[in-house]
């Protein structure tokens, strides 16, 4: 498929998705499904995941598996808090970025220079990150220090001395807030689009903008520059790259340090949201970021979709447990669409008859889908409140389901996770 074709397909997919969301919202009356609040929460929750995922992308495209993202993110949060309370948000940004990058450097030294298994090194960094930060808190934030007087504790830093600015789209999502007014009319499709747009443009932290810009930037650098080509070659066939004079070690170092910097940036964002460092606030987002990246087939676009899925599901469940049950309906709709598409294909004229045997399996799938749809509708009608524990796991279950359907199309960089030594061919 040509590039244009893919691009169009993505647009069509997005349009269908919005249409279905809109349909479900109208049918269920759960306005939170497409409300601006949900989408702004989704953005808020997706950004750290996306940044961690970008970190994973940069490392793995250069052939280094980075399971230590979580640890690097933790370093990012602590140093952002520490610098931020003293010198403001810009300092927080720089410090968190650098701290994450240092974590990446550590990973690079272990994996690239010493050839340690990538997973092992990552696990060690995940152990070290929280250890180091707790230790630093114990030393620098203990009672009697200036920081403690400004509100620091063993688990938190003082608040940032200045906040990162937030921006909105003039007229549309602030001031007269036209999108907001449109959203509140709850008209089919129109309000939904307005809600989504407003959610993504209302009081957006500049770091969010920066993070979102990182996606096309990453795509551009990795797929349209010489440096990116060399970086990806280190993940596909480092020996070939080496034979053409590419300094593979250097490339890997750079990639892994950038990877750590992205993870650190994810940490910075968490600190910006809470306005201070809070111990444990990363809560496994490094791992989720990695999952989003795999989900996204090691590509920035796919990764963004993965992070968005997580952010959306989490945001929705935080805002409205009731809206979550509407996704039974969503699932049912999907299945019905699937059944319809399959039926159409099967009933199409000119189908060779000897393919009949193959359809035996098809019939089972079809029947199963139909039954599934019925069960989902029934669940939607009868369950009005899921136990919270089941609501909490919505994002994770959704990810598993999507992977079940799509994971066979994934292709990871060929030499990802391979221990590369200069001059030693495989």
């Amino acid at each position, binding site marked *: 498929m040509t590039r244009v074709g893919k691009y169009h397909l993505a647009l069509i997919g997005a349009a269908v998705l919005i249409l279905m969301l809109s349909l479900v919202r109208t049918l269920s009356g759960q306005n939170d499904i497409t409300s601006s609040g949900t989408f702004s929460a989704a953005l808020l929750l997706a950004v750290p995941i996306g940044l961690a995922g970008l970190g994973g992308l940069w490392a793995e495209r250069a052939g280094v598996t980075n*399971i230590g993202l979580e640890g690097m993110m933790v370093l990012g949060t602590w140093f952002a808090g520490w610098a931020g309370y003293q010198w403001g948000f810009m300092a927080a940004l720089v410090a968190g970025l650098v701290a994450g990058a240092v974590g990446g450097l*550590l990973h690079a030294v*272990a994996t690239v220079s*010493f*050839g*340690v*298994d990538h*997973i*092992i*090194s990552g*696990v*060690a*960094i*995940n*152990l*070290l990150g*929280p*250890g*180091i930060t*707790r*230790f630093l808190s*114990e*030393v620098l934030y203990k009672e009697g220090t200036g920081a403690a007087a400004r509100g620091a504790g063993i688990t938190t830093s003082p608040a940032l001395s200045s906040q990162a600015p937030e921006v909105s789209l003039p007229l549309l999502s602030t001031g007269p807030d036209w999108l907001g007014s449109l959203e509140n009319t709850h008209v089919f499709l129109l309000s939904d689009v307005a809600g989504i747009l407003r959610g993504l443009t209302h009081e957006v932290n500049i770091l969010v903008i920066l993070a979102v810009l990182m996606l096309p930037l990453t795509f551009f650098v990795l797929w349209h520059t010489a440096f990116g080509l060399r970086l990806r070659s280190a993940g596909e066939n480092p020996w070939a790259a080496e034979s053409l004079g590419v300094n593979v070690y250097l490339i890997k170092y750079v990639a892994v340090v950038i990877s750590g910097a992205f993870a650190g940036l994810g940490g910075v964002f968490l600190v910006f949201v809470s306005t201070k460092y809070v111990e444990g606030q990363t809560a*496994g987002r490094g*791992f*989720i970021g*990695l*999952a989003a990246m*795999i*989900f996204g087939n090691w590509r920035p676009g796919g990764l963004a979709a993965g992070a968005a899925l997580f952010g959306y599901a989490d945001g929705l469940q935080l805002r409205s447990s009731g809206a979550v049950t509407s996704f039974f309906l969503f699932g049912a709709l999907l299945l019905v669409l699937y059944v319809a598409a399959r039926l159409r294909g099967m009933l199409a004229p000119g189908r060779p008859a000897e393919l009949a045997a193959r359809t035996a399996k098809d019939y089972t799938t079809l029947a199963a889908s139909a039954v599934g749809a019925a069960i989902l509708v029934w669940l939607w009608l009868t369950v009005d409140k899921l*136990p919270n*524990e*089941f609501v*909490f*796991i919505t994002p*994770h*279950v959704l*990810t*598993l389901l999507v*992977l*079940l359907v799509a*994971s*066979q199309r*994934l292709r990871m960089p060929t030499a990802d996770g391979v221990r590369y030594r200069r001059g030693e061919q495989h």
Partner: protein
Amino acid sequence: MPAGLYRALLTVAGAAVAIVLAVVISSVAISAAGASPLDAFAALFNFGETERQVVNGITTMVNRSVPLFIAGLAVAVGFRMNLFNIGVEGQYRLAAICAAWVGAQFTAPPLIQILVIIVVAAAVGGLYALIPAVMKVTRGVNEVIATIMLNYIAINLAAFLVRGPFTGERAAGQLTTSTPQIPESGWFPNLNWIFEMFGMPAPRGGGLWGFLLVAVLLGVGLWLLLERTRFGFDVKASGLNASAALASGVKPKKMVISAMVLSGAIAGLIGLPEILGDKHSFGSNFTPGLGFLGIAVALLGRNKPGGIAIAALLFGFLDRAQGPLQFADVPPSVITIMQGTIVLLVVIANEVTRRIALRREERRAARHLGANTPVEVTA
């Protein structure tokens, strides 16, 4: 020197260097914190003045090591096959709650009661690990993400069960939720007699957990299975070279499923030392995180039961010092820093020594071959 001995000596030397380096690094950190590294290391080795304190300290250390050892084994089974079971965390939590609940539902002679609990735990852990295994072999889902997702799901499921269907009675004013108490016939007898044998007082608390014996048996059994049987050979072959294993008649899907289920079944036992030896129920403040630590322990122990035992004891030794360090006014997080640096440095040392050993072996083989020694040629 035989190649095996040489390799073993190198490994030990590497580990020693790594630990010394880790000590140096943590000393720097301790000094930076304004405390004395000497005090800190004294606290590490000071098990107390009275015999009872010493016994308590040893018990704490060993009791901590037991679940870590089992966790390490669980992770190692997968690792041997290049299967990354990051889901040990979820598997053991779910297994622990189910086993604790089932164990509290009936009373039987001790042996049977305990056996049933162990079997339930292993079965639940194994079944939960079966999910990512099946997803992997049928749909090619990467087991790393699948198990990460399943961890979250397991934690929530356990929370739901402990507060809902599996909840037990509570004393008035008690805020922790837990499953019903397992009757006494389901308590694992402790090993305090070991101390008494040496004329020492019995330790406090649940005493030295009897599950230690099960863990040792498990370690030996797993070693036999992995090193001495056909199944172990197939696991090793699949891990070293999947396509060669396939061509030699090993069924990759079957191996993925059996290794994952075995890993999950072992993971299911991680919570039992605590439940059978001390808590006798699964509660909302059941020790979390053992699955993740198990990864570090397995790596440190190079995926071999013997090594894992040493690594688990090392972690237990360090963790025991959390309290004593605070008595010595040293920040206890130094322990985590030490654990992290030791893991990182030991794996680096492993890698370096492995390469030295390989180089030596190649040289020996080449010398034996004697092929490429230059010859005098008359052109």
